[in-house]
């Protein structure tokens, strides 16, 4: 950066401002913040004298709860601000950038450092630091060196290295990535394909989106290495159309890579040809399943077929195909560059490396986190997540999305890795982690996931198509207070039928949310069915709102938030709830500062 500056009365020598433009940041208004910085700096003639690109866009840095996050790197000293809005920009420019005095009150607090210090960032380290729309930013941090190295090796050596690293698929089942490539390579038919699965359909997971938005080149590099290893000349990225920003960034990255001859003919000056195409998903959860995904790329209805033959031998257009998840592929360049031994130094023996989790729900610090596999659930939720918000009690943690299960609070000391999660009746899935407190009803949770799977069932297998519908009907009945005795047994029986009688992962795992909530929270089901009570107070039909006149301070807060004018209140009078107008939304309950609404 040019050291000379014309800003008088200031010791400003270099300046970089980094603003998060992930989906979370954009929703919090980061584009306005960027525009404001650009405008202000231009007005003060700072922008022109420092560098053309001193306001940088970066990907998600994980701590989305405090967006918009802004890094101001002034004379090589970094300060991070949180919860920045455009109105605050002028103060920051005046005090910090011109006069060198950071605005203390807006700086991030200790929880920001706590949140980051307890993590081990490999994949996410670069997201949030580099400009995702600039290939040079990626090559500056050793980007594409892993691919260069791989292409100088024999493909079998590449596979061996990945196999030795113990890298397991980050998409759900946790199959060894090296073994998958090996199977694919051994199948004589050609051409072979490599597909990156970015159809992140799990509700509550967004790590794939963040990686592609924050560092798309790492995924491309992973695909080049994988493609070379299995002997494919064409790769596909199957990505959700619901992620417009990620698609856009990926398109830019692909174009840049082609320009540099990292993709195309004779890439990296070798005789290897490789290119990548983007295929947009059309919104079907089942297309995360490998055989369904390939049907969808072929332009057909995305329905799974029986396996074997597995897709590594007969996949896309009936040719051998390796399908890897975004996060798996993003790990590959590191393994090639730094070696399998380096990778196995993270995590445990059978669960090597790190995993990105989307920590969400009723947790103080929500966002994207990366930790070594095998870290305990307690450390993740309390040390990184800062515990449950509003000091409520932790009830359960849901992992694995609609295919996973709930882990009750008493098992909080368990390590989080592929095998332990499966043992407790949940699964890794793509890594969503939703924290639930005592106001979350577990029956309602099971119903929520069944609504999802019932809707997404492709309809091929009868147990899944009809079974999930019947199950949902039963659960709906229970949450509406019309449960019958014997419902729990019927649910369990149906769970077994669906689990054993369906073809694909979606069907086989569809009953897991029900099974695990019955296993650990059977008493909640019983309370709904036999007593007509929802212990968490979450099921609307079983809830009655009342004002406790002993604790009501007549403040009128409930009156103001009520969206359906159901609360009658005047100054110096107790509030009253009109039951016929009440839509039981719970706004008054949340708004009351004195817990006077029951």
């Amino acid at each position, binding site marked *: 950066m040019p050291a000379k500056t014309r800003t008088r009365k200031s010791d400003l020598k270099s300046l970089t401002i980094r603003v998060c433009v992930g*989906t*979370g940041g*954009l*929703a*919090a208004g980061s584009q306005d913040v960027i525009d404001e910085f650009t405008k202000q700096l231009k007005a003060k003639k700072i922008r022109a004298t420092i560098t053309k690109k001193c306001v940088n866009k970066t990907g998600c840095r994980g701590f*989305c*709860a405090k*967006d918009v996050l802004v890094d101001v790197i002034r004379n090589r000293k970094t300060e991070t601000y949180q919860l920045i809005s455009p109105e605050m920009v002028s103060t920051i420019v005046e005090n910090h950038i011109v006069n060198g005095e950071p605005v203390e009150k807006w700086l991030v607090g200790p929880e920001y450092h706590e949140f980051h210090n307890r993590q081990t960032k490999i994949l996410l380290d670069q997201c949030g630091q580099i400009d995702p729309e600039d290939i040079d930013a990626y090559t500056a941090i050793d980007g594409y060196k892993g691919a260069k190295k791989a292409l100088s090796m024999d493909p079998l050596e590449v596979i061996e290295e990945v196999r030795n690293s113990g890298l397991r698929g980050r998409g759900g089942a946790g199959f060894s990535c090296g073994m998958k490539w090996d199977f694919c390579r051994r199948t004589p038919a050609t051409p072979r394909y490599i597909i990156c699965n970015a159809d*992140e*359909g*799990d*509700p*509550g*997971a*967004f790590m794939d989106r*963040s990686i592609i938005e924050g560092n798309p080149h790492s995924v491309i590099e992973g695909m080049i290495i994988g493609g070379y290893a299995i002997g494919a000349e064409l790769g596909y990225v199957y990505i959700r*159309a*619901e*992620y*417009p920003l990620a698609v856009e960034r990926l398109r830019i990255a692909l174009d840049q890579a082609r320009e540099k001859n990292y993709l195309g003919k004779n890439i990296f000056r070798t005789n290897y040809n490789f290119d990548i195409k983007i*295929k*947009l*998903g*059309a*919104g*079907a*959860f089942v297309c995360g399943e490998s055989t369904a995904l390939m049907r*969808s790329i*072929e*332009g*057909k*209805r*995305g*329905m799974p077929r029986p396996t074997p033959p597995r897709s590594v031998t007969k996949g896309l257009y009936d040719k051998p195909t390796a399908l890897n998840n975004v996060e798996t592929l993003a790990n590959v360049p590191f393994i090639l560059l730094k070696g399998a031994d380096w990778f196995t130094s993270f995590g445990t023996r059978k669960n090597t490396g790190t995993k990105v989790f*989307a920590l*969400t*729900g*009723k947790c103080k610090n*929500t*966002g*994207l986190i990366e930790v070594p596999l095998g870290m305990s659930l307690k450390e993740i939720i309390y040390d990184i997540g800062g515990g449950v918000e509003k000091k409520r009690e932790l009830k359960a943690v*849901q992992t694995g*999305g609609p295919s996973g299960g709930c882990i009750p609070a008493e098992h909080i000391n368990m390590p989080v890795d592929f095998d332990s999660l499966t043992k407790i009746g949940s699964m890794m899935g793509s890594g*969503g982690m*939703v924290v*639930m407190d005592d106001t*979350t009803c577990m029956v309602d*949770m099971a119903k*929520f996931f069944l609504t*999802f799977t019932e809707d*997404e069932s*492709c309809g091929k297998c009868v147990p899944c198509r009809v079974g999930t519908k019947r199950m949902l009907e039963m659960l709906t009945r229970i949450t509406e207070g019309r449960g019958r005795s014997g419902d729990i047994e019927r649910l369990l029986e149906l769970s077994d039928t669906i689990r054993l009688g369906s073809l694909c992962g979606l069907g086989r795992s569809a009953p897991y949310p029900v099974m695990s909530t019955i296993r650990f929270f059977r008493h909640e089901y019983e309370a709904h069915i036999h007593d007509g009570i929802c212990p968490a107070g979450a099921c609307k039909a079983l809830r009655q709102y009342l004002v406790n006149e002993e604790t009501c301070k007549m403040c009128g807060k409930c009156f103001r*938030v009520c*969206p*359906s004018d159901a609360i009658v209140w005047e100054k110096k009078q107790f509030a009253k709830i009109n039951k016929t107008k009440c*839509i*039981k*939304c*719970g*706004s008054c309950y949340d708004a009351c500062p004195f817990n006077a609404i029951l």
Partner: protein
Amino acid sequence: MEKNCQKILHRYNAEGGSVVSLLQDIQEAFGYIREDVVDWFSDELNVPASNFFGVATFYAQFYLKPRGKNIITACCGTACHVKGSAPIIEKLRMDLKIPEGEVTSKNGKYTLESVACVGACSIAPVFIANKKVFGKLTAEMADAMIKGLEKK
């Protein structure tokens, strides 16, 4: 219509498209999957129309009916659900007068649809109104959001 269709057909032939990508292009150009457009392609490509509709009805992204002028997408992901998106969806349905079992209001002004997860769980509950993302939405903010749309 003919001109638009020719354009799409040209792209289809040039890029080696599939039924899915063709339908995506049709929807992009016409707003929804129009029956007469599908028939045109069916004749042109010698592919039965049932093939197109089979695919179109399989995927959530394709619409067989015209959509409203303003499109509000409600995220129905786990985090949004836990953080209370359901009452807001219900409220919007009531306020926008969307009939039960439909997604578009009778005057064609609003479409309220739900999507599995937009992947912005940290700022749950999330709603998207005409591509602008609203995070941590409350009932009051929803009112303001609708007012903003009404002005347009």
